[in-house]
């Protein structure tokens, strides 16, 4: 058996990475086990804090917290803790030279931004990379919408036709353009990630700068799919904005999640400054518990089983999508601790007839206390040194609320902090 670490985190989505970093910054040794890339590999890269509450658009999300149900993770933690968690995240990103900031209202209060997507819809989101100029987005009159030849997921005509259906964008003057593909004639389907990876490297970045040159200085704003690199590298942005001669805003895009990979890059860079070990391509099979504590988890990598012991554990395995929560007819449980989540026997009751309705399954998850420790039906803590974070928690619907990354940051921070404290207590014993 390998050395006992202080905090073992399972899952490398945003919640897992934030938990790991929180614990590491408190001086704890941290090991993170992950099967794949986590949800950041499909994320658009902006932080949705709370876009809708009680089915109403939230312009000031902090005000709207009061509209959430009591068992919502934000309510459970309390507004002040959520604020502290967000500050921790923002500070981290500043230090990594990849600032994530909210737009500000006239009176200086932070508010949600309606960010355009590659479908031409607008999505309320909270923290944006500082490279996205929200001021320019609000005031631009002449807007150029660009995509790249062969990029099937983003077509300027769709973006323009749909953006025009919003009052705030209806009067703007739109122009459409297609940049030549740097791959030339190819039958292979290209994605924004292929293009962003070219942009990462200074020697191959030039294709984008050259392609933008003919448009330089003619517009107030350029909307583009996420092409400006897959790493949290501000240099790329400076170069792209200079080549465009106006602010460039990337539209939110579907998987592969270029924007999310930048967040992952920044957080891993921060983590590697600490006593931190990343174990990839490993699947946690189950937890081993004794009494009121977890002692280790059993994981499998390349057909080999290995036991990972730790003083405290954070489970951030994602929900249904990440595989952290398993649904079977009439049953639901979490994949590591096998906590049985009470659900109606009749699967029909799990969902609504409308696809974006108020589904029960979307809020299924592990119940926790304020400290993110799982509790049983009688509200008693199951294990003293186990903490849950992110979508494996119940009580919220990240998709319709637009709260996914926000809950991940808040609960990841809380779980990481509590796990660090539990590990410290365990060490003393």
């Amino acid at each position, binding site marked *: 058996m390998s050395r006992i670490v202080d905090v073992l985190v399972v899952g490398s989505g945003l919640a897992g990475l934030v938990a790991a970093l929180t614990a590491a910054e408190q001086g704890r040794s941290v090991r993170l086990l992950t099967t794949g890339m986590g949800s950041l590999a499909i994320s658009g890269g902006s932080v949705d804090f709370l876009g*809708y509450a009680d089915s109403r658009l939230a312009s000031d999300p902090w005000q709207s917290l009061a509209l959430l149900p009591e068992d919502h993770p934000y309510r459970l933690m309390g507004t002040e803790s959520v604020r502290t968690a967000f500050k921790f995240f923002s500070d981290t990103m500043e230090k990594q030279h990849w600032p994530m900031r909210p737009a500000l209202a006239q009176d200086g209060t932070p508010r949600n931004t309606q960010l355009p997507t590659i479908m031409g819809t607008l999505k309320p989101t909270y923290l944006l990379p500082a490279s996205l100029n929200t001021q320019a987005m609000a005031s631009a009159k002449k807007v150029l919408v660009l995509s790249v030849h062969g990029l099937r997921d983003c077509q300027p005509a769709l973006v323009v036709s749909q953006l025009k259906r919003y009052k705030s964008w209806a009067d703007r003057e739109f122009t459409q353009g297609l940049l030549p593909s740097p791959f030339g004639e190819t039958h292979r389907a290209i994605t924004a990630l292929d293009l962003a990876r070219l942009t990462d490297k200074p020697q191959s970045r030039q294709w984008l700068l050259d392609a933008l040159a003919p448009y330089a200085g003619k517009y107030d704003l350029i909307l583009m799919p996420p092409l400006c690199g897959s790493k949290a590298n501000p240099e790329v942005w400076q170069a792209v904005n200079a080549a465009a001669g106006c602010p460039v805003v990337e539209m939110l895009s579907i998987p592969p999640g270029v924007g999310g990979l930048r967040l992952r890059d920044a957080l891993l860079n921060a983590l590697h400054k600490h006593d931190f070990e990343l174990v990839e391509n490993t699947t946690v099979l189950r937890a081993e518990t004794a009494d009121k504590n977890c002692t280790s988890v059993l994981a499998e990598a390349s057909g080999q089983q290995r036991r990972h012991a730790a003083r405290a554990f954070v489970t951030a395995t994602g929900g249904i999508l990440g595989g952290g929560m398993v649904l079977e007819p009439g049953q639901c449980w979490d994949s590591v601790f096998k906590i049985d989540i009470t659900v109606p026997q009749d699967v029909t009751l799990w969902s609504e007839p409308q696809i*974006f309705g108020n589904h029960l399954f979307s809020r299924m998850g592990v119940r926790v206390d304020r400290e993110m420790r799982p509790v049983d039906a009688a509200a008693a803590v199951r294990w003293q040194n186990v903490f849950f974070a992110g979508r494996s928690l119940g009580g919220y619907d990240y*998709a319709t609320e637009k709260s996914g990354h926000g809950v991940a940051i808040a609960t990841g921070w809380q779980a990481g902090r509590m796990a660090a404290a539990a590990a410290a207590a365990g060490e003393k014993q």
Partner: protein
Amino acid sequence: MLETTVVVIGGGATGIGTLRDLCMRGIPAILLEQGGLAHGTSSRFHGLLHSGGRYAVGDNESARECIEENMIVRRIGRQCIEETEGFFALTPEDDPSYVDRWVEACGRAGIDAPEVDVKEALRLEPNMSPEISRVFRVPDSCVDGFRLVLHNAMSARRHGGKMLTYHEVTGICQKNGKVCGVTAINKNTGETVEIACSMVVNAAGSWSGRIAALAGLDVAVSPDRGTLVVFNHRFTSRVVNRLHPGSDGDIFVPHGSITILGTTSMPTDRPDDTTPTSEEVLRLLKIGEPLFPRVREYRILRAFAGTRPLYTPGNAAGRKASRNFHVVDHAEQGLDGMVSIFGGKLTTYRLMGERATDRVCAKLGINVPCRTAEEPIIPDPDEATLARAAKYFPVQGIKLMADRMGDDIGPVLEQAEKAETNPLLCECEMVSMAEIECVAKDPSTHSLTDIRLRTRLGMGTCQGTFCSLRTVAALAEHGISLELSPTDNARRFLQERWGGLRPALWGMQAREMELGRAVYAGTLNLDGAAHEQDC
């Protein structure tokens, strides 16, 4: 007012098959369909071209019709059929004494059903249960019901036939006990359409009782609801039936990369009662397990339901009701000029059309023989056309495309030749831009769902998660507009897919469904946009 000789009601296999037959015999005809083509049962069944083995014991006459038509349809409709053959397998839960009766009945119906050594059967179908004790080989096949209807429609059109889709019949006009016309409402525009005619063929399937009632006739047609499960794997190469008297959920039918298991049987009073339930899905899995023990581990793609039009004079219901069809001349009940086709099944659609057309001919005093059993529905594309296609389509996709498109292969190729590139927009089903563009421009196409039914767009693993965005984007870029806006169209398309995902919301399918919600709600805010656009 439109004028024709015969109005055919119902745009499923039977109605379109009848229209084709009428037109091939030179009789002017117009077909009315309340939805799109194959809106009803012809797109909501397991896609089995019966050998007749299923009916051999209980309904030998149906079995004989099945095997005869099976052989004809594979000849004339090659593009719609996958000649898989089928197994009938005896599981420990089935009565062994049934086997002799079944073998004897197959022989009587003319169905070639030799016994296969169990070891050999398991070698051919390794996922089948090793507990199986006897296996028989029959000429079952798989049929794409929607494509069959579409190709028949293309053929009918070539012979001068006219079709009005999204037209719901509102009245059968009669004068002195004789049919003189039909009224319908255009469901897209709300306009009323009148067609003067001398005869009506009621081929409305599950709705045929309602059409008869419109003409003031009382007929016993009981819709019977059946639910089916689609798996995301092809775990069998052949159709596999349980060797026992006809019952729920005991036939597995492979199609392309998927497998369909069906069906249940439950009476309903609504022909459009097509919402499947989780309970039915679970029941199907239970009944399917003796044939394929790992059936619960296979990922379910969706569930769907359809209604069968059972003809039930004398109150025979459910499984006991005959699957046989009846061509009824309502002159006997005092309405001259109306012929109804009741009951039946897809396998015998052509024969039903032939019998109905024979009756129409007799009434009209026309003496032209039926040719539908001889002429292929769609002519095969020539070598030169296929060589042209090779430049624009991935090599594995050419045959798929040619079989799908039928008569439209020419326009699709022209489209591909005109365009700069011809990317695949739906990777699961290998549907390319040229096909989608060509179908989207067809006047009968109103929505992404119509494009799906013609091309299989969004019917594969991702269930529309990637291809619906790509398709609305490509159509916008090419300046092709449909009735709904791109975002509304995508939303409705995903909603339609959602109906089939809901009853099996577990396992891998639940994860795939969450990916769809992550993309369309989480990232693209399609749900919020529904309220915020146009305001």
